[in-house]
């Protein structure tokens, strides 16, 4: 399952699609950045409602396959630019985090 497959199967909106062929494995949900870095695995889909620029840094450093913004939260343009520069996939959905995780679980 690639990030591109995930987008079509879950009807996520691509916000930044830097690496659509990245393989997806597993999922982590959380907004506290140190928990994400301590617990998420490389390749995980990371579901969050955090939208500041640190989200991009953590997504990159923790090497997740994609950040999925739940609850319809949006990014400001500088954050989008940063994700593009760092090659971090960012997707979004109007679903709450729990429903998003259930959906991801059902397709991967």
């Amino acid at each position, binding site marked *: 399952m690639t990030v591109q497959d995930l987008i079509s199967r879950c009807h996520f909106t691509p916000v930044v699609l830097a690496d659509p062929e990245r393989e997806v494995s597993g999922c982590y949900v959380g*907004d*506290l*950045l*140190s*928990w994400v*870095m*301590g617990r998420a695995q*490389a390749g995980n889909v990371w579901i969050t409602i*955090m939208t*500041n*620029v*640190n*989200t991009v*840094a*953590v997504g*990159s*450093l*923790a*090497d997740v396959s994609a950040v999925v913004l739940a609850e319809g939260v949006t990014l400001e343009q500088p954050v989008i630019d940063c994700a593009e520069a*760092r090659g971090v996939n960012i997707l979004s959905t109007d679903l709450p985090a729990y429903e998003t995780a259930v959906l991801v679980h059902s397709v991967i």
Partner: protein
Amino acid sequence: MSEHLNFHYNVDGENFVSAGQASVQVKKNLRELGLPPEVIRRVSIAMYEGEINMVIHADGGVADVDVYEDKIVITLDDRGPGIKDVALAMQEGYSTATDSVRSLGFGAGMGLPNMKRYTDDMRIDTTVGVGTKITMTINF
């Protein structure tokens, strides 16, 4: 002394909204060196946690990443307030971070434990009122 690469960074203590620039640069540099992704991930996360701590707790500092043939050594040096009780600070969940820092997603009290978790060796030299120097080694 063996030949090695050194990356040196000044970590700005002013802006904690965009903190983490040195770590992002380190990740880029290590990728260019062709190091294994898992090593890069461990170094990046340990360094990022340390860099964020220097920004939110110590008003910035300097970071050095030394790349040897079989290990990477990260050194973070600041002139901040120091850590009074290191054993307490090392506990998961212990944090003195402010609410504004927490609202950015930091301050979970997991930074030092993560640094320990992702490195093979971690040393904290700290003196209250003088500063903190953290040295982390990742072997590969």
